[in-house]
């Protein structure tokens, strides 16, 4: 018998892997600046749904993985995702009772903070050619939040991840 604590571990890992693939899949150039932060979105969802299982450590590990994928400074996305996980853990009780578009607004802020931190680290490194557009992913992520929520909630209920 699988113990109750570890139910659906595979499903969570799988959603993060899919988020990784979406994070590096090639997009047409005009869409590149608006690539949604799939990994952050997935992390936010699991933090809200299962705050006792997904949190800071998950954010840290995920972020290091994303840094390797994107070839950025090791720790850049880790830093951002740790902060996102922390804020989602603080806010999860409120977020659960918000309406869909209120949630999207909070997601916009969370992803915006994520982008801001990435931008800071990149500035320290000296890579920031066109910093005007860095909030675009926050918009696209917030717009896609209802879809992500729907899919992940469907998965969670179907596989009874708890």
């Amino acid at each position, binding site marked *: 018998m699988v113990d109750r604590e570890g139910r659906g571990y595979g499903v969570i890992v799988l959603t993060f892997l899919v988020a990784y693939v979406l994070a*590096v899949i090639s997009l047409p*150039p005009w869409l590149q600046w608006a690539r949604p932060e799939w990994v952050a979105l997935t992390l936010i969802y699991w933090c809200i749904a299962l705050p006792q299982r997904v949190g800071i450590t998950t*954010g840290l590990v995920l972020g290091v993985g994303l840094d390797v994928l994107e070839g950025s400074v*090791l720790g850049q996305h880790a830093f951002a995702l740790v902060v996102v996980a922390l804020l989602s853990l603080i806010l999860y009780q409120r977020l659960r009772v918000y309406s869909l578009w209120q949630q999207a607004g909070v997601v916009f802020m969370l992803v915006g903070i994520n982008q801001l931190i990435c931008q800071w*680290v990149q500035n320290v490194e000296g890579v920031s050619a*066109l910093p005007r557009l860095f909030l675009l992913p926050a918009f696209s992520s917030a717009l896609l939040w209802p879809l992500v929520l729907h899919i992940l909630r469907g998965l969670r209920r179907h596989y009874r991840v708890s």
Partner: protein
Amino acid sequence: MRVLLALLVVVGLITADLRYNNLQTGRAVLDTLASPIFWVANLPTRSFEWGQAHLQSRTQLLEDNQRLQRESLILQGRSQQMASLQAENVRLRALLNSSALLRDDVLVAELIGVSPDPERLQLLLNKGASDGVFVGQPLIDADGLMGQIVEVSSSTSRALLITDVTHSVPVQVNRNGVRAIAEGTGALGSLEIRNVSSNTDIQPGDLLVTSGLGGRFPEGYPVAVVQKVERDTGEAFARVLAVPSAALDRTRHVLLVFTTDQSQEH
């Protein structure tokens, strides 16, 4: 408590990577682990290519074949004199006591990913340390210099394009040998030539080739064509913009250059 610990780890990682640059081996291992993700992400493109290759009509294939045969004939004709010219060049250089001529071997690599971050102009290639790829290796395509390798794992490697903001390449004007440094601007289609004084002889249309100074890039590969020269009498330096010769955003196959000393063979 856990937050503090996580933040400590993160800040430690960033400083270790940025300041001391000592995470290369760890990164290489992680890069190898990450390659399946790129493989999956690359599936749509590859299946599209497969479809294109297999569903092409017979007439089109025949046409392609004829065209390629013609091209091959022309190129063969042009390279007939190459061997004798090269030998002559080596002899003349020996007479001049000039440095030995270097011969370049190439390895074809395929693109398996581009950096998802539009601010980082990096490519992921399907050749790694097991194929002899090394950090600092130059990368070219059919038309010119593309960049250099910055990270190598066992079966993949990451290349930085010449137009990335963190990249610079020593060049010279092919027409008259004026030396300069071409820096990336972060936009795929333009390079900026820095610190060219206002009275330097450089014009739009000039071809910039690698100068070989610095020892990283072999001499003589085309880098860019000068597009615009702005001379402001109030400024100490002219503002020179150039367009890269290589098709940085279109190439799918690239060449990794191995430079070997030819003088030993003669």
